[in-house]
């Protein structure tokens, strides 16, 4: 028996804004517990929500970038349930008129597992805006609640059940994250809880129309974990079905260390959230003109940017994909590329040197000390032979360490490449004079030995001689 996998993702993304969704508290991460709070976000009697238009705007931008329809009329609703992390015991969210409806994410290319994926569009049902809840912290004899997170603007992005493999889920999430980063909506750092994902997954016999029993996976802390959890869950469900067993609708947690899932709870009777329109907020209207104006502010989509890098800068598709995988890296490269006539070399340096060092130092591109200007300068110095590629690496290492400008390092260390004829000539003459045996070999036809002389000259010049110039001169001397 063959089974089709049906996966739907429910993604929550914290929107990067100065203040919370309905009050003026800073929406920051990592503060002391209960320091970014006020009467509004702790649900004191008498308070009222004031909508954060920056968050609304960013939600609409996310929607437009995902190809959503933006209805002219939207509103907020109250969703009621009792839990200590809910200051009002209702959440202000959106029920039947969300800001964004229907959208799609384009996935293609090589999947996370290395296999090629079928190119396809995963549709999303909606994107709505709501307030985040507080964080419960459980201790041995009591529980604490940190309300710093309560009220932080949160987008909920619901996909249609159109994902059919772990690779597709991974690609959907990566693309979604890229879009959020590109639009400045969120950094989508899963470790910081800026992006959270619940997976709904079911199996059905190939070709069957009705869905199988739906299992919800929670506690997924990285894309990698999601990929692993989906594959493990597909296997688990398949084993049960193949052995004639029946699945029950349940919520399972994922333990990434042990690489297994565990039962959290069997589906209880459906929650009755008693939604009704939030009377403290008036409905929000967008004219077609508002939407058109927002469209003008839209950032370039990663897919489009990669195409531009290929056509404008002559990058390979692979290099362009690597560089555009992260918005900040793409911007860094884009800035630098505008200041050099050798963008392809810049791309090589960014991908091979810069990314390696970043990963060694475990820092992000935002934290790097080398400015994109200096990176371009370095590439320029190499491309016009002011320094050799080899010296370039030394200079780069110091730039990475200290953030000094490349020309400063080159000047301080006297690393300027020597292309000056008389100086090179003296090194060339010296190397010929000191190595009669190799001269002999050359003369008998073993011309490859010329590399030996180049090496000698480079040594004599302490690496500063321009290797091409050296080779040219050696050739003319030895051939004479």
């Amino acid at each position, binding site marked *: 028996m063959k089974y089709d996998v049906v996966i739907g993702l429910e993604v929550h993304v914290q929107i990067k804004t100065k203040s919370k969704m309905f009050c003026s508290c800073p929406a920051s991460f990592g503060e002391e517990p209960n320091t970014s709070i006020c009467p509004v976000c*702790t649900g*004191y009697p*008498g308070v009222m929500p004031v909508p954060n238009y920056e968050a609304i705007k960013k939600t609409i931008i996310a929607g437009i970038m995902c190809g959503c329809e933006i209805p002219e009329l939207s509103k907020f609703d*109250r969703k009621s349930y009792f839990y200590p992390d809910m200051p009002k015991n209702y959440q202000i969210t959106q029920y039947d008129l969300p800001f964004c409806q229907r959208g799609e994410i384009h996935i293609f290319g090589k999947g996370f597992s290395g296999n090629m994926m079928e190119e396809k569009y995963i549709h999303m049902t909606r994107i709505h805006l709501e307030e985040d809840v507080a964080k419960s912290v459980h201790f041995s004899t009591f529980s604490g609640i940190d309300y710093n997170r309560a009220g932080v603007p949160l987008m909920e992005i619901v996909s249609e059940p159109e994902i059919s493999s772990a690779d597709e889920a991974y690609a959907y999430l990566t693309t979604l994250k890229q879009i959020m980063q590109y639009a400045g909506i969120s950094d989508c750092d899963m470790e910081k809880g800026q992006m959270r994902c619940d997976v709904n997954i079911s199996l059905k016999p190939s070709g069957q129309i009705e869905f199988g029993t739906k299992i919800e996976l929670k506690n997924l802390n990285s894309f990698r974990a999601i990929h692993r959890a989906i594959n493990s869950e597909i296997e688990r469900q398949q084993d049960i079905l193949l052995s004639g067993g029946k699945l029950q609708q349940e919520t399972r947690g994922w333990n990434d260390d042990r690489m297994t899932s565990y039962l959290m709870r069997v589906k209880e009777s459906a929650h009755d959230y008693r939604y009704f329109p939030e009377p403290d907020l008036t409905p929000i209207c967008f004219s077609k003109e508002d939407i058109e104006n927002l469209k003008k502010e839209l950032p370039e989509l990663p897919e489009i940017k990669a195409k531009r890098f290929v056509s404008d800068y002559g990058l390979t598709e692979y290099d362009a994909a690597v560089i555009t995988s992260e918005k900040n890296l793409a911007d860094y490269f884009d800035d630098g590329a505008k200041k050099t006539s050798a963008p392809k070399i810049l791309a090589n340096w960014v991908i091979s040197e810069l990314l390696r060092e970043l990963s060694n130092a475990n820092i992000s591109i935002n934290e790097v000390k080398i400015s994109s200007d200096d990176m371009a300068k370095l590439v320029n110095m190499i491309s016009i032979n002011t320094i050799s590629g080899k010296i370039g690496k030394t200079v780069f290492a110091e730039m990475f360490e200290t953030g000094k400008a490349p020309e400063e390092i080159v000047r301080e260390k006297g690393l300027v490449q020597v292309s000056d004829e008389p100086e090179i000539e003296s090194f060339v003459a010296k190397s010929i004079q000191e190595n009669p045996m190799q001269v002999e070999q050359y003369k008998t036809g073993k011309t490859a030995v010329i590399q030996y002389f180049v090496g000698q000259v480079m040594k004599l010049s302490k690496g500063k001689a321009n290797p091409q110039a050296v080779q040219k001169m050696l050739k003319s001397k030895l051939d004479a």
Partner: protein
Amino acid sequence: MNIDLKTLTISEASELLASGKISSVQLCSDYIERIEKIEPEIKAFVYFDKESVLKSAEESDIRRKKGEHFGSFDGIPVSVKDLICVKDQPCTCGSKMLKDVHSPYDATVVTRLKEKGFIIFGRNNMDEFAMGSTCENSSYYPTKNPWNLNRVPGGSSGGSAAAVAASEVPASLGSDTGGSVRQPAAFCGVVGLKPTYGRVSRYGLVAYASSLDQIGPIAKDVHDAAILLDMISGKDHLDSTSLDKEDVCFADVVKSAGNSLKGMKIGMPKEYYIEGALDESVFADIKQTEKLFKELGAEIVEVSLPHSKYALASYYIIATAEASANLARFDGIRYGHRSQDSNNLHELYLNSRKEGFGAEVKRRILLGTFVLSSGYHDAYYLKAQKVRTLIREDFNNAFKKCDLILSPISPCPPFEAGTLLDPLQMYLADIYTISVNLAGICGISVPSDIVKNLNVPLGIQLIGPAMGESKLLKAAKVFEDNRTIRKFVPNL
């Protein structure tokens, strides 16, 4: 000089302060003395801080001496209903649930009053969480009607109305969700104004039903109500449902009201005057008022509000639905009453709410939860919203034919204390006031007569369209100046 508190208005107090004939300390001390004398009988206050009032009065006097006072009302006391937040004061909504809860901030109306130098003069008793029409549903004690101690002062802003009627304070701010300012004002012989929804910021008003709640002044006369409306109304960035104020001074409108209602059309809804629906005294009062309006030059026209009979049902569904969510936050987790014998979270919720809330509050939370529940939501909540739209349209149509609508406030005079035990009977008494909240329009209650054998006052209601307060206040003022009884002062 000696101050006659029994008739003193804000505008008179303002003149006396300006002329230097009295000081704020003297004014406040006189009120304090009166409170100490009669409050044991009336019980209109649940919180009063003598020291801080006198301190504020002293500060006001110093400002005035230096010529640095915050306008002409600096130093005049005003009290607030116990659901309007005042920084560092308790705000208990008449409930055991919030017994020890202090407000960490000022409501916008309080900020605005303080900016004008008004002294926040204690907190008035109320039906718990504004749910009730008698001021007997308070977890503290029932408030008495200053006219007749065996009668209720009305509710839910009963403490505010009784305090003003008993001259314990010249004015008070109440809140009106279905008549809670207008009805107690009528029962106590004072003026109560329910402004257009959105005219006054609700920030700092503990919500009962957010789409119906509105803060309104309770005052000795129409002019004072207008003065307070000037002070508290206008757009507030903390309440996104609040509205911009048009360029008008309501106090000036009242002052220049004149003595004629010529050219004004007063509508009388035919659905409101069915024989037998009104107590005889109320019916007679309305007839007498109709006659007076005619004499004042107004034209009386019959209008129709065909969906009136559904207003009560619609109101109690919408109000309780919103209340069920608004009151969900009172769970004993962050503040307020927390049950001491609970073994787990679920029990903590159950017991805290069981012990903290009174019966009427529980009844309305249950009702509201029910009408929002899946399976019932469309039949109740959604239907009620549709009715609400129809009621709003009824008023829009009526106001095409008239400027204002004349109606009773309550179908009967103030109830005898302790007799209104059937909740449904209590809900039915709201019939003439709730439509105004459902439609989001404005209404005012003005004392009109005294029921001689009971020694209790009656009030009439004038209803105006949305943002129609100018017309409303003008007509109310002309009526006030020409009614048979000049001043409504209880014998206390």
